[in-house]
């Protein structure tokens, strides 16, 4: 008997067992919500619980009030215009969130519906063709036309799964651009004005009163309020839709299309409905934007804009309305900040400092990295300066103060230096993600210095590509580090 080995204990599950409650799936996750909250800091947990009691319409009212008061404190026309664009982005992000986040369809042609709304408005209310349809009729009409176009794109796509749908809709976007660019020669008729677009679009008119685009030479704030009203309408309408039967059906479609179909849901119809609704929202946003810009060009609806909107929805959190709003604000502000050299510089160094602190916390290693980076920079700067003073003299233009003695900014950067530095920076960044321990600490200072060099010499002088490089990187990193975005609901995988 003694030869018998004692039975090995079952492998210990590293996760603590739930004290009680249902065993599997979402229920378990829900049941452990209080536990998780308590695990955080008691204050944060309590605050979270309290804040959760505030109804969504109160948050919306607060948010809108803050937004509506903004022009009272900010008289700059530029800032107001950016605020207007941000609100438009918020509406677009809400519409995209419906298609991607709720119904789970990857629609890469979304921005084309925005274009449809814009073009419909421009064609039927501009001096180019001489039609002047009243705004009160034209905006709903454009929205409905946009929705119908969405329906038409959805029709052949409804049987397709994720990837095919993506490519199909992306092609639709390309097609829309083609039609818009060549629309001045459709059977001899000029419909879209070709690549020069349509200019001379009339501003919005309500009850016979034209809403001037400019007031005393700067952006008229009335358009900002129109956009806010639009945002509130869309937000509330989508909120109720999401809470409705259709909204629940969409989410079930996203989680498992096959299961939804088996449960008797009209899957195709639901897909078409989500396409059409999202498209209508985008077209709605397009009308107001076009009325403000007084013109419309095919280039306004390029894939670049579309990926920007995607970045907003994903950063905020796919499937969350507030996430879409937050993402739109952050990305819109980010794109503006990156265009201004001074702000872009500040943002970069702030980002690097926060990133390094997040990586090491406040520790000896942090101090080592910071000191090594500083010394590394000073040494490189001294070497470059002793070689020839033109290598470091470019710093007077933009970088003032301490930074000018640290980062090398040549008067005239040879193209190959920039290219090699960029390539080395990429390699350095990839290495830093792979290395661990001391190797990482050794690799970090040169990488940080290279990042500073590339930022000062390449990114700041070329804000156009630089901001989209940042956006592309953001998408990749977000998908890997936090696919649910800032406010997104964590997907619960049912085992």
């Amino acid at each position: 008997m003694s030869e018998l080995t004692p039975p090995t204990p079952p492998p210990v599950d590293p996760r603590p067992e739930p004290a009680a409650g249902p065993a599997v799936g979402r229920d378990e996750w829900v049941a452990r919500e209080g536990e998780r909250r308590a695990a955080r800091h008691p204050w944060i947990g309590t605050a979270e619980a309290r804040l959760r009691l505030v109804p969504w319409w109160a948050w919306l009212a607060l948010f809108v009030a803050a937004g509506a008061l903004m022009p009272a404190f900010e008289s700059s026309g530029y800032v107001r215009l950016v605020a207007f664009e941000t609100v438009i982005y918020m509406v677009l992000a809400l519409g995209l969130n419906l298609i991607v986040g709720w119904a789970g369809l990857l629609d890469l042609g979304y921005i084309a519906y925005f274009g449809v709304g814009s073009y419909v408005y421009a064609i039927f209310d501009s001096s180019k063709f001489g039609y002047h349809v009243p705004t009160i009729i034209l905006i709903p009409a454009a929205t409905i036309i946009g929705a119908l176009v969405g329906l038409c794109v959805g029709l052949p796509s409804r049987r397709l799964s994720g990837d095919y749908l993506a490519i199909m809709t992306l092609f639709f976007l390309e097609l829309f651009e083609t039609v818009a660019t060549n629309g001045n020669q459709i059977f001899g008729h000029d419909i879209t004005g070709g690549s020069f677009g349509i200019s001379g679009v009339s501003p919005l008119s309500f009850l016979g009163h034209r809403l001037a685009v400019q007031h005393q030479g700067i952006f008229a704030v009335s358009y900002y309020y129109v956009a806010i009203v639009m945002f509130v309408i869309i937000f509330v309408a989508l909120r109720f839709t999401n809470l409705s039967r259709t909204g629940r059906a969409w989410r079930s479609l996203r989680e498992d299309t096959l299961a939804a179909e088996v449960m008797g849901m009209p899957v195709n119809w639901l897909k078409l409905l989500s396409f059409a609704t999202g498209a209508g929202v985008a077209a709605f946003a397009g009308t107001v934007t076009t009325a403000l810009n007084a013109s419309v060009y095919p280039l306004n609806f390029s894939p670049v804009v579309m990926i920007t909107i995607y970045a907003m929805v994903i950063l905020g959190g796919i499937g969350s309305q507030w996430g879409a709003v937050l993402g739109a604000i952050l990305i819109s502000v980010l794109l503006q900040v990156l265009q201004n050299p001074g702000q872009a510089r500040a943002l970069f160094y702030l980002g690097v400092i926060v990133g390094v602190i997040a990586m090491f916390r406040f520790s000896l290693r942090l101090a080592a990295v910071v000191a090594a980076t500083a010394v590394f920079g000073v040494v490189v700067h001294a070497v470059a300066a002793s070689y020839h003073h033109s290598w470091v003299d470019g710093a007077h233009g933009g970088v003032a103060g301490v930074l000018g003695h640290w980062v090398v900014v040549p008067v005239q950067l040879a193209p190959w230096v920039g290219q090699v530095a960029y390539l080395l920076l990429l390699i350095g960044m990839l290495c830093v993600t792979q290395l661990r321990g001391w190797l990482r600490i050794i690799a970090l200072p040169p990488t940080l210095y290279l990042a500073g060099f590339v930022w000062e010499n390449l990114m700041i002088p070329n804000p156009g590509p630089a901001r989209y490089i940042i956006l592309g990187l953001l998408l990749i990193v977000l998908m890997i580090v936090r696919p649910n975005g800032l406010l997104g609901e964590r997907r619960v995988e049912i085992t």
Partner: protein
Amino acid sequence: MQFFIQLTLDGLTIGSVYALVALGYTLIYGVLKLLNFAHGDVFMVGSFIGYGVLQALGGASNPMVPVWLLLLLVTGAAMIGCSVLGVVIERFAYRPLRDAPRIAPLISALGVSFFLANSMQLLFGAQQFNYASYNLSGGALYFRGFDLDGVHVPLLRIITIGAAFVLMVILWFLVNHTRTGKAMRATSFDREAASMLGIDIDHVIVFTFVLGSALAGAAGVMFALRVPTFAAVGFTTGLKGFTAAVIGGIGSIPGAMVGGILLGCAESYTAGYWTTAWSDLVVFTILILFMIFRPRGLFGRVDIRKV
């Protein structure tokens, strides 16, 4: 008739480029079930690498090495450079997302595409880069060749189409007659089962990316030998390459070739008999027709969905 032959020749040339791009899509889609949006941009980077090597070797008007070696070196460098790029992309942008929901790697691929296109624009500007291949050895690549029913067939066209064909045959051999190829097919059929049978999935996926990206690099050089290249070219070409892959049937190697050639010819005939402006419309119409009537393409197999 002469016009028709001319157009067919054009279509075959551009079609073989599309076919090579489509092969990369098909391979990667087959193994990873991932629509690699960045593939078109890998193609673009390939054409840039080719341009760099061409300039390093003295440019088209005064090359240091004989023309045949020059073409070989340029293509080889682009293929190797793109393979490295493909492996890096897979390692850093797709591998961490292998078990994530389907939408995550798609978005990541969009990000990579965006990143590559704008990086190239940052480093090299938005201008066009011309290989100036008509300067190669005094224009011999254009003047030589043979006549077909009164239409001159330049040597460069023959080289392009021939090289594409040779690459496809090599690929077909690699996939169908080697151990790694067998592992690739097994992975494509059922990844989980393949890994249970001892196939190193990571190895297979890296190999797939090497193959697909190398083909994209070669396609990039072939494309740029014909027309100048620029940073934004990857997006549209990638889209057309994917359309070719869908027409031929995703996952099928002969399908990708046929799809590419069909697409190239369709575009060329549209441009010749109608107008260049609407060639995208024709491509889109073909895609829609296939999606509606034959979603699995010409040579694709029916996917049985298991629940």
